[in-house]
């Protein structure tokens, strides 16, 4: 096997305690290691407060890392700063939970999709507009969405735009933060299918963070279960789904089932 695309080793993320005499906070992410081979999908699962979002934000360089290392494509990802970091970020695509919050409310879809291309230094013009239209159609939306604004779209449509934006610079790694949690169940399946198609087409690797084990089992090759900042269990998806070693993982699976049954039909 070749070197992993993303390699996280003994990562610790700790938020600063508030107040002069406050005790040092427990780390939000406590010595987590993971390795994501190129072309595969790792699902990170945990309930809220498990540290999965902090892990993701550390990988995106949105929160400072206390110790440990992150290697992206053989490069020390934590060493990049300033303009170098800005350039390096082009190789990671990010899809957030709520598309209506993560798409700028005052820009049109065309403008939103142009942003990453302009950030890379592409020249605006007809070629860029074509590229944007192609990008959007790859994500299942016709070009007549381009002049619209995010609030005129449905949740699923908006999330497709967010995915198109994440893929604009042909990143090798796609980081997804609960990309289906704000959507209803039928749309969730569509988005998951879209992601699987795109993954095959673009040769993507995905880091998929969610609280929903059902969703992630559908799409991930590997699973990692987190609780209170630490990894509880990790391994191939089939093994964990069929024979989880840890009680907590089993609980988490039961959780999903129960929630599914008792979910109100709205």
């Amino acid at each position, binding site marked *: 096997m070749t070197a992993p695309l993303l390699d996280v080793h003994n990562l610790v993320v700790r938020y600063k305690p508030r107040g002069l005499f406050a005790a040092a906070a427990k780390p939000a992410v406590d010595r987590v290691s993971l390795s994501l081979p190129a072309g595969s999908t790792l699902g990170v699962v945990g309930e809220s407060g498990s540290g999965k979002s902090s892990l993701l934000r550390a990988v995106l360089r949105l929160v400072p890392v206390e110790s440990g290392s992150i290697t992206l494509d053989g490069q020390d990802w934590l060493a990049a700063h300033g303009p170098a970091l*800005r350039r390096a970020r082009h190789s990671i695509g990010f899809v957030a939970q*709520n598309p209506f919050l993560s798409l700028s409310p005052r820009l049109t879809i065309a403008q939103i999709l142009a942003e990453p291309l302009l950030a890379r230094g592409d020249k605006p013009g007809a070629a860029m507009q074509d590229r944007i239209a192609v990008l959007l159609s790859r994500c299942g939306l016709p070009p007549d969405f381009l002049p619209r604004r995010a609030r005129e779209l449905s949740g699923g449509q908006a999330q497709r735009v967010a995915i198109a934006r994440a893929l604009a610079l042909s990143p090798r790694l796609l980081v997804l933060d609960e990309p289906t949690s704000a959507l209803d169940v039928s749309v969730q399946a569509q988005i998951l299918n879209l992601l699987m198609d795109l993954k095959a087409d673009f040769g993507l690797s995905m880091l998929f963070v969610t609280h929903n084990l059902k969703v992630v089992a559908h799409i991930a090759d590997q699973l990692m279960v987190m609780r209170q900042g630490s990894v509880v269990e990790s391994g191939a998806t089939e093994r964990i789904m069929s024979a989880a070693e840890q009680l907590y993982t089993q609980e988490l699976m039961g959780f999903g089932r129960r929630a599914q049954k008792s979910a109100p039909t709205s």
Partner: protein
Amino acid sequence: MSALARRLGYGGTLCLAVIVTFALLALFAPWLAPYPDQGMGTPNVIAKLKPPSADFWLGTDHLGRDVLSRVIFGARVSMSAGLLIVAFSLLIGLPVGLLAGYFGGWADEALMRVTDVFLAFPALLLAVLLAAALGPGLLNSIVAVAVTWWPWYARMARAEVLVLRGQPYVEAASVMGVSQGRILIRHILPGAARPLLVQAALDVGPALLTASSLSFLGLGILPPTADWGKMVDEGRKFFPDRWWVSAAPGIAIFLLALAFSVLGDALRDREGDKRRDAA
């Protein structure tokens, strides 16, 4: 036009009409004033301090000049003073607030402490001191008022940026590798600008009041140029016997300041509606 009127409501539309009327008077003063040369300052001593009549609708002042013409020409000074004070204040306050709010840390501390120093002085007192130091003149009095005005915009811009900075779409832009300058201008500024512009519209009235106060105190534009604040001051000596000399420009100040305030209110209500809809 009717859509705008519906949005602004009855009062807002009326105020807009008042402002537009004053703007047109200011713009076309040489053609609209009955005695343009007197409006610009030529004395006419044979007819001094005449009460309102068919010849002089609002009477004449101590140099025999037609008060109506003076009020019409004075609209030029007051309008531009009000608008320029707010424009200058935005020009300083908006960038300061944006930078302080966005970069935080020591930049925030430094910029906001400087802002606090300006806020520490009573606004009119500081303006009077500055105007006295700079010497009389329209531009000087505008600068003097703007210096006391911008800290409010800086604070407001900072507060808006602090809210917007944490928005997921701003975070998404930074994760995409968009430069900080572009994030600030393209993703944060449009959201922050709108409430600030509403506040600016609301402030034109008080700004032109302050400018008029300065020229009332003799620190504004120099005679013989017509200025409402100055005219009220000149008429003071003849009040209340020859009330029209002070009353006409006084009422003009009152009307225009009121119109800007009510229009700003109408705009703010509309903005409030929008925010509720978006939530």
